[in-house]
């Protein structure tokens, strides 16, 4: 059973803005009945102000797909087209108080339908993601789509990409290709991060701890979890970072290497003065 937030349940049991708009100015359609979920978004847009006056949806899908669609229509109403384009899939998930990791693709579907609708309004090709090379044959996901989702959500593993796009969730033949795409995007991101780090002012302690936590959550844990290991941040004392290794990491003969690996990552992404110490779990 999925652990849905109250907000998800509310939008599932009482979805807002169901149905069609007969004279819609924009319609965006993503997904298919074969894939297991599909969303059709209708927008009424004021031609002068480019403000979204009304939004309605029809969704075939699970609880979180219906809730994400309902949330999306509530979020875009009253926004201008340009404001609406800034909505990310994470914004949709946040609006609902979060979604289970494996259901993040529902929020991506919402974002994609919105972009498809606005592209249609602006007289462009159906969707930017239609371009690019098809990577996942099972769910029809392109490399451009995967790269965008990896970039926007800072994804690190094939499993995460599957949770967000479904890509790789069928036969599994595209896993290698997805890994390459992740490496490619993360290579680009790292360059940007480095530029940021040198330009920035010295961090406060709170900023430093938050940043360490973020790097551990987003960079290090997904890597360790692939090998059935895990790590927990225990404390930060000046530049000493105390961590406890969990799962397979505790019995792994290369746990010393794991410690060095964590340290290298933290030095690279947070502060070169940091050093990592392992404490008992």
């Amino acid at each position, binding site marked *: 059973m*999925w652990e849905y937030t109250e907000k998800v349940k509310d939008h599932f*049991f009482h*979805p807002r803005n169901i149905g069609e708009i007969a004279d819609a100015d924009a319609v965006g359609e993503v997904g298919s*009945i074969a894939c297991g979920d*599909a969303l059709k978004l209708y927008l009424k847009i004021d031609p002068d102000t480019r403000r979204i006056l009304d939004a309605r949806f029809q969704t*075939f899908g*699970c*609880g979180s797909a219906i809730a994400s669609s309902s949330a999306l229509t509530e979020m875009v109403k009253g926004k201008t087209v340009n404001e609406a384009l800034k909505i990310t899939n994470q914004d949709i998930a946040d609006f609902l108080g979060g979604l289970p990791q494996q259901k993040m693709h529902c929020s991506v579907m919402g974002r994609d339908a919105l972009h498809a609708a606005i592209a249609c309004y602006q007289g462009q090709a159906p969707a930017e993601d239609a371009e690019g090379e098809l990577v996942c044959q099972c769910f029809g996901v392109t490399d451009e789509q995967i790269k965008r989702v990896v970039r926007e959500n800072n994804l690190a593993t094939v499993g995460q990409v599957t949770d967000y796009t479904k890509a790789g*969730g069928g036969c599994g033949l595209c896993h290698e290709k997805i890994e390459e795409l992740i490496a490619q995007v993360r290579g680009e991101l790292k360059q940007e991060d480095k530029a940021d780090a040198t330009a920035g002012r010295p961090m406060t302690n709170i900023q430093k701890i938050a940043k360490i936590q973020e790097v551990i959550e987003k960079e290090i844990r997904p890597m360790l979890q692939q090998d059935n290991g895990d790590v927990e941040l225990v404390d930060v004392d000046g530049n000493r970072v105390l961590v406890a290794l969990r799962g397979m990491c505790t019995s792994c003969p290369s746990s010393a290497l794991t410690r060095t690996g964590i340290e290298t990552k933290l030095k690279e992404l947070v502060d070169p003065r940091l050093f990592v110490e392992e404490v008992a779990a």
Partner: protein
Amino acid sequence: MKVVYLDNNATTMVAPEVVEAIRPFFTQRYGNPSSMHSFGGSVAREVAKARESLAALLEAESPHEVVLTSGGTESDSTALRSALETMPERREIVTTRVEHPAILNLCKHLARFKGYTVRWLSVDKEGMLDMEEVREKITNQTAIVSVMWANNETGVIFPIHEIAEIAYEHGALMHTDAVQAVGKISLKLRHSKINFLSLSGHKIHAPKGVGALYIKKGTRFAPFVIGGHQEADRRGGTENVPGIVGLGEASQLALEHMEDKMRHVRKLRDKLEQGLMEKIPFAHRNGHKEMRLPNTLNIGFEFVEGEAILMRMDDKGICASSGSACTSGSLEPSHVLRAMGVPFTSVHGSIRFSLSRYTTEEEIDYVIRELPEIIIFLRSVSPFGREALNAICTVQ
């Protein structure tokens, strides 16, 4: 809110009689059946009684053919690994595409890591095997044939005795995962060619964590769990006495009730099927109408998704399961329904209702009353639902 529990193929309520039978074995009769003192020895007699009840339910030749285990999965692994170990010259396994993961993933594992060849049997759109294919795939290379007695998702029953005869003709061993069939249909093992049969306690109103493996007398056997001398050296480990006593009691109840209670269950299941089909257009039964367990009903509702249906049913206190992708833990819908070629318009909206002897007519009436509205609502939200909605309007 009252719970209407129609998910008995997932697990069942422990029968009150079973709870009573188990109760003394925690604080009063907690002895070890292997002990020399009478305090433990008297418990061993209870284990023996449970084994007899189970043998009676299976219509086995002797209670000695029953080895008590931790459940269906352990029994499945034990049977297949034993067969492969005792027949090292044969490197092939024959099984179906619609097995429970306990067999399906075991076979994939044996193929991938141990180099065995698995010959997969397909099913038709009603979930039935092609006996021609069965005859073709079982050869002198086959070490073991493993075919479930009844499918957990659709309830479709396979002709296990007939398949066992074919296996026997080729010198192959026969195993059946009968977790869903035990207690619901008569198994008549005494004169069969079945070598191994797996069963699970919690599907027949006994507790979770106990099960059994039937091993036909004369079958060569290599144990999987190795340890002490329990179970006549066939399964090490101190017996799960409360579980075993419960399984014995549950077996006795199942045997006593099988005929009349299963007739009652079938009547209610048919009422549910008819009631839902009449009220909801664009709904299809998955699985053969006749060759099916009396308690199982699987319906695909077109244009709607299973998890959404389950959540709304849950809100009304109704428990069932779905074969949709969103509930299967993967992104693909149930392997059983896909193997049957259930069309994608309805595979995602497939719901399994599984009844028990405790299901009442009021509960069935309640589901027939509540479910149509849920489907109508979800179709009104669905971009593909208009066609179905129009049809509802014409009906009314």
